[in-house]
């Protein structure tokens, strides 16, 4: 039913792919199912051998493992290591996997006992500091975004099949935002992390008049010091800048710096 794949006379292997999730909202996997128009083409390009969200069958011999979510418990770290051992290519799918995502927001409290009590009272529960995949295993490829963009996943998978290198834009979101003819949000009085965030989302948020919150992490050579000045000049509070920087974990280092600089007692 599915013949050998080939392109320009070069025979291509159909990769066996598997999807896994750790601590996450499972949205990035869902984005793949959200590919209505091209889902069937996508499915004929690869052989899905493991996708718990969509299918019951599973196999452990896969070439490419897409892992969504971050690591927040010891058992997850073990699962991740096992996946790493099986996979030829391990892909971090989405911001949780790449940077810790929103999950890492709890790391800012340092005091994990307080965090547990706040939600579960005295009931015992296991959790640890939230980590991106790369803190536990080697990651071959990152697909950024919260959520990921299906067009990007399709392009990446096509390139994987073809053996083309996967490269992300190295420049910031502004580039795509301006090319979308948007009014810059700063002109509307809204803060935006577009000038420092890695492009590739096609300025998803600014095109909808929502400032960028940096879900794709920093662009190469991001000039955060200048953005801080710009925000301050325009009357954006340091807190609002920090909220955005710390939201998805991509700017964790800078957020930590800002937070300790502010030390504004927001910690309970």
């Amino acid at each position, binding site marked *: 039913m599915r013949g050998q794949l080939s*392109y*320009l*006379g*070069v025979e291509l292997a159909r990769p066996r792919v598997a999807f896994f999730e750790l601590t996450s909202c499972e949205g990035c996997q869902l984005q793949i199912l959200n590919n209505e128009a091209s889902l069937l083409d996508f499915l004929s390009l690869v052989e899905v051998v493991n996708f718990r969200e969509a299918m019951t069958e599973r196999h452990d011999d896969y070439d490419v493992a897409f892992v969504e979510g971050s690591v927040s418990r010891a058992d997850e770290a073990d699962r991740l290591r096992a996946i790493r051992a099986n996979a030829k290519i391990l892909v971090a799918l989405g911001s949780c996997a790449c940077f810790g995502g929103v999950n890492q927001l709890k790391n800012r409290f340092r005091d994990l006992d307080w965090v547990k009590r706040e939600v579960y009272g005295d009931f015992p529960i296991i959790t640890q500091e939230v980590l991106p995949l790369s803190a536990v295993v080697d990651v071959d490829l990152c697909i950024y975004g919260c959520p990921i963009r299906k067009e990007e996943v399709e392009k990446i998978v096509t390139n994987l099949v*073809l*053996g*083309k*290198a996967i490269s992300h834009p190295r420049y910031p979101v502004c580039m795509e935002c301006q090319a979308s003819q948007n009014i810059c949000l700063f002109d509307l009085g809204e803060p935006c992390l577009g000038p420092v965030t890695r492009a590739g989302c096609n300025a998803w948020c600014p095109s909808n008049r929502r400032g960028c919150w940096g879900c794709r992490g920093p662009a190469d050579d991001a000039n955060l010091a200048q953005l801080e000045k710009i925000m301050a000049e325009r009357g954006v509070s340091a807190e609002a800048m920090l909220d955005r920087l710390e939201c998805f974990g991509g700017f964790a280092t800078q957020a930590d710096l800002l937070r300790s600089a502010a030390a504004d007692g927001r910690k309970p």
Partner: protein
Amino acid sequence: MENRLPFIDVLGGPGGRRREDFTSFEYTLPAEITSLYALTPTETLYQIRIIDPTARQRFTFQPGQFVMLELPGIGEAPFSISSSPVRHGDIELCIRRVGNLTNFLARLTRGARVGLSGPFGTHFPVEEMVGQDILLLAGGLGIVPLRSPLSAVLENRSNYGRVDIMYGARNPAELLFTYQYEEWRRFDINLAITVDQAGPGWQGPVGLITEVLKERLGQAGSLATGTCAIVCGPPVMFRFVCDLLTRAGLPPQKMFVSLERRMHCGRGKCCRCNIGSTYTCLDGPVFDYWSVMNLKEAI
């Protein structure tokens, strides 16, 4: 309907424009790979022939010029023609695997279709070198563009004086065109080869190409008047080699270098190869050293 302004077809419709003007862009000649020969684990020599015989015959080029080679959806990139200009649209390209296009090319087999456009750029003025001594200095992949002027010289060897090739590679395994060295020597070419690191069985010199050049200069103290140099290699090499040659009395307009920049069109439109006012694709890739010396950021 009279308010509708008539459409102007720039490719051929009214307006009396020359058709060729506008079709040179994105116009690729269908070509085929007639042979692939792996020179090293990373470099392959491709023979590429324009399929249409008339177009093949019409495709003429000068040594040092480059073509844009295209594979759909994989990429398009500039490559120096490495073969003799006598052969027209049946060219040789020596390509190093560094990225998408070059890696995919290496997976193709004989008979595969590629798209070719060009030739583009400036060339080494070998006709003007008649009667003179020629120094060919190459580092690494730099030997590839030098092979074309070398072929031109070999076609008319007696027209030229002393010809030296000084060629450096990182290690013996990376040396290109080893099978031709004997042939070159037979044509009375002084071939000096050096490597950064010796490998098993390596008898020749170890060290930088500048050392080899110093040795050559040392013999005569300085260079004979009526010497030309052609230099091609990584950016750092240019500076050292050209400095040495300048000190040896070679005037800058008699040294020719071939520069490499990122290119997306080869036609002076994408600006990616731009160095100040200069387009590497239109004003280069071959420059005399005088022009390059005066270009900020060139080397």
